[in-house]
């Protein structure tokens, strides 16, 4: 008995396979830790960039003079080694007020700091140009000589009212500048181009009318501009200097030290919303990323519209119709290898084939009246096509697998009912393999949405305020350049003139890009699961 029990003992050190279990577990653990670490960092930093910090007034000792005061919020604390080998603690403060200080960020020596206090009446002012302002509200100068002191009754209400009014005026101005003047000058340009070829009285008349209309619009524009600068908001910095901000440029005034947890949460949500819903400002370092979100989503969707039918058709032929032999094998290997080609190569191909060749042909045929290239330059259509080419192997491989995994019994049943091969594929095989095909599309979308390098050659730009789909006829503009979140991250992080200001935006944008990919994938997965349930082949 004892011999046999020791023979089959499971506690001995020689249990077969045990070390391998540990090894594989370590592999998985490292993978999980890396992913969780990356996502965690991005999420923490991303959310942090929206969370409003408390504003502090820091008093700094000046050598041979009075102490100076500066207001701002703490960005980071760090220690650095000086040339003499001493360790110095310092803090980085965002102080804003670019007109006064030049630099928005400042490093302060811990040793030199006398005091650090949170004062109730400090405010953070977001404005259209010049970056944030930090200080105390002093007064509102309302057109003429009328002035409303900050301590006066109804000051806050008046400030809110003017901020809102400013937004309305800016909307009106945008409407006039972008849509009305835009359309006007586009037509004028067209007419002038035609005029060069040969003049006609009707054309001259239309041109004169357009120019008169332009004068009128320009007048309206000037008037709006004046209204925007009519009143000013005066903010006092800690050193007593004043900053005058036209109320037409005010975006938001936030008294950071007067609100509690929920107030800050509300501010976080407002900032996050502003981030996803507005256009970028100040060379992308401020404002939102709405055009980039829009560009990314539209490009990915258009790409999947191209790649799905193309990939599925190719896979059906390859798996169902082509005579299996060395040629088909070679095609299959080539398709797989295509997935491993560096993506920039696809970018170069897209530039040469889609833009220069196809775009050139389209321009010659349909846009010979236009002075500038229309399709013969980077645009969202060409970018989507390039990415479709890049991701088509993924869809082909997944579809082939899905087709191959449809049980033979189901196929035979269809044929035994008198279905032709195509009828069997169309009505039975294809529905049964839809979940597998969708898996391929999901993978393709995830790959496409995150790809940046080829896009830089075929249509992505740093700033493209005109969206590829908008209210201007013909509403869809597949030739337009666009913004993309992936490229935005690169641009903010490595091309920005103000890298300190761009840093939080990099994390927020990364978080957003990951979220968009996750949302698109989840949607596709939900659709796939519903299909899987619907088309489950009975296992009886």
């Amino acid at each position, binding site marked *: 008995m004892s011999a046999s029990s020791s023979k089959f003992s499971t506690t001995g050190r020689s249990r077969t396979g045990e070390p391998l279990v540990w090894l594989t577990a370590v592999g998985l653990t490292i993978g999980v830790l890396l992913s969780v670490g990356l996502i965690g960092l991005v999420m923490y930093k991303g959310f942090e960039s929206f969370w409003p910090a408390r504003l502090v007034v820091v008093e700094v000792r000046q050598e041979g003079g009075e102490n100076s005061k500066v207001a701002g919020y703490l960005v980071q604390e760090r220690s650095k080694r000086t040339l003499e080998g001493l360790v110095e603690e310092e803090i980085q403060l965002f102080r804003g007020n670019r007109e006064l200080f030049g630099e928005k960020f400042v490093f302060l020596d811990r040793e030199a700091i006398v005091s650090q206090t949170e004062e109730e009446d400090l405010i953070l002012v977001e404005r259209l140009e010049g970056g944030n302002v930090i200080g105390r509200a002093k007064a509102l100068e309302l057109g003429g000589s009328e002035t409303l002191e900050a301590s006066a009754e109804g000051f806050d209400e008046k400030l809110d009212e003017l901020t809102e009014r400013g937004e309305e005026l800016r909307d009106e101005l945008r409407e006039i500048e972008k849509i009305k003047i835009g359309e006007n000058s586009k037509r004028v340009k067209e007419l002038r181009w035609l005029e060069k070829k040969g003049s006609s009285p009707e054309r001259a008349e239309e041109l004169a009318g357009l120019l008169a209309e332009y004068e009128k619009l320009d007048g309206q524009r000037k008037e709006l501009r004046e209204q925007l600068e009519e009143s000013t908001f005066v903010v006092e910095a800690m050193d007593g200097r004043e900053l005058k901000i036209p109320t037409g440029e005010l975006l938001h005034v936030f008294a950071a030290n007067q609100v509690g947890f929920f107030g800050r949460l509300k501010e976080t949500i407002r900032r996050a919303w502003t981030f996803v819903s507005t256009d970028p400002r100040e060379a992308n370092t401020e404002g939102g990323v709405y055009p980039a979100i829009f560009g990314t989503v539209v490009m990915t969707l258009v790409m999947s519209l191209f790649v799905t039918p193309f990939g599925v058709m190719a896979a059906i032929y390859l798996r169902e119709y082509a005579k*299996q032999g060395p040629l088909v094998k070679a095609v299959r290997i080539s398709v797989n290898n295509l997935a491993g080609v560096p993506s920039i190569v696809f970018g170069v191909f897209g530039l040469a084939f889609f833009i220069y060749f196809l775009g050139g042909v389209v321009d010659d045929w349909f846009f010979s009246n236009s002075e500038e290239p229309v399709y013969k330059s980077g645009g969202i259509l060409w970018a989507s096509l390039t990415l479709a080419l890049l991701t088509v192997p993924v869809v082909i491989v997944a579809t082939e697998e899905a087709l191959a995994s449809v*049980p*033979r*019994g*189901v*196929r*035979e*049943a*269809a*044929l*035994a*009912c*008198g*279905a*032709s091969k195509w*009828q069997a594929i169309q*009505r*039975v095989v294809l*529905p*049964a393999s839809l979940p597998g095909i969708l898996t391929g599309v999901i993978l393709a979308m995830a790959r496409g949405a995150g790809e940046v390098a080829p896009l830089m050659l075929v249509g992505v730009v740093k700033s493209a305020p005109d969206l590829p789909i908008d209210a201007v006829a013909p509403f869809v503009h597949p030739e337009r350049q666009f913004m993309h979140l992936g490229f935005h991250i690169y641009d903010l992080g490595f091309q920005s003139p103000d890298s300190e200001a761009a840093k939080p935006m990099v994390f927020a944008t990364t978080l957003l890009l990951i979220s968009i990919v996750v949302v698109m994938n989840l949607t596709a997965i939900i659709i796939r699961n519903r299909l899987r349930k*619907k*088309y*489950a*082949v*009975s296992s*009886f």
Partner: protein
Amino acid sequence: MKPKAPESKTHESLIEIKDVDFCYGNAKALDGIDLTVRRNEIVAFIGPSGCGKSTLLRCVNRMNDLVPGARVTRGTIEIEGVEIHSPEVDPVELRRRVGMVFQKSNPFPQTIYENVCYGPKLSGIKDKSELDGIVETALQGAALWDEVKDRLHTSANGLSGGQQQRLCIARSIAVRPEILLMDEPCSALDPLATAKVEELILNLKEEFTIVMVTHNMQQATRVSDRTAFFYMGRLIEFDETATLFTTPSCKETEDYISGRFG
């Protein structure tokens, strides 16, 4: 020795298999098969696994066309005197005349109604009331109507195994074939469901000619008119079922039916 089919004047022959050899690639699966099936009879194929009975069955509606490298290398298979491999025969058309029920029930992942009207729809019937009629007749023919008439538009996957197999039979007969091939139709079913399907097969005899493969010798005796015994790709004996099971003329047949091998 060629098996001798009993003469009968009341039946005309429908399927004539003459001297057929069949190969999967280089492996010979059938060797010189001669066999005639008459109209409105039930023929059972028995024999140990791998003896070629399913292969022969699948030759009759050219289902083997799907298997790469599989082909008839000698002989002819004629249905009503027409060689089914001749170029003017469209395999799709052939399969409409020769239906098939498989060993594993394989309903489409669709509703019961869609399953049954799959074949008729393919042959171009679009009229709703006509389709309704076909579905009802087919389901009644497969003795399934009473069980499913209230849930025609629910998924076929919700049916039990026996019901699914009868649904597959209904799907086959909805196409109104002349011949019904059944490849071990009861092998995945419990005895109760088997009894139902067997009863059904006997009823279907009125309208269809049925060729079935079975591993169950009792089933062959209960259902079939004539039985063919296959062994190692050859047709050993083909006779009236009662004769074959009581007084087999070949030793292999006797050994097999008495359970000495196979």
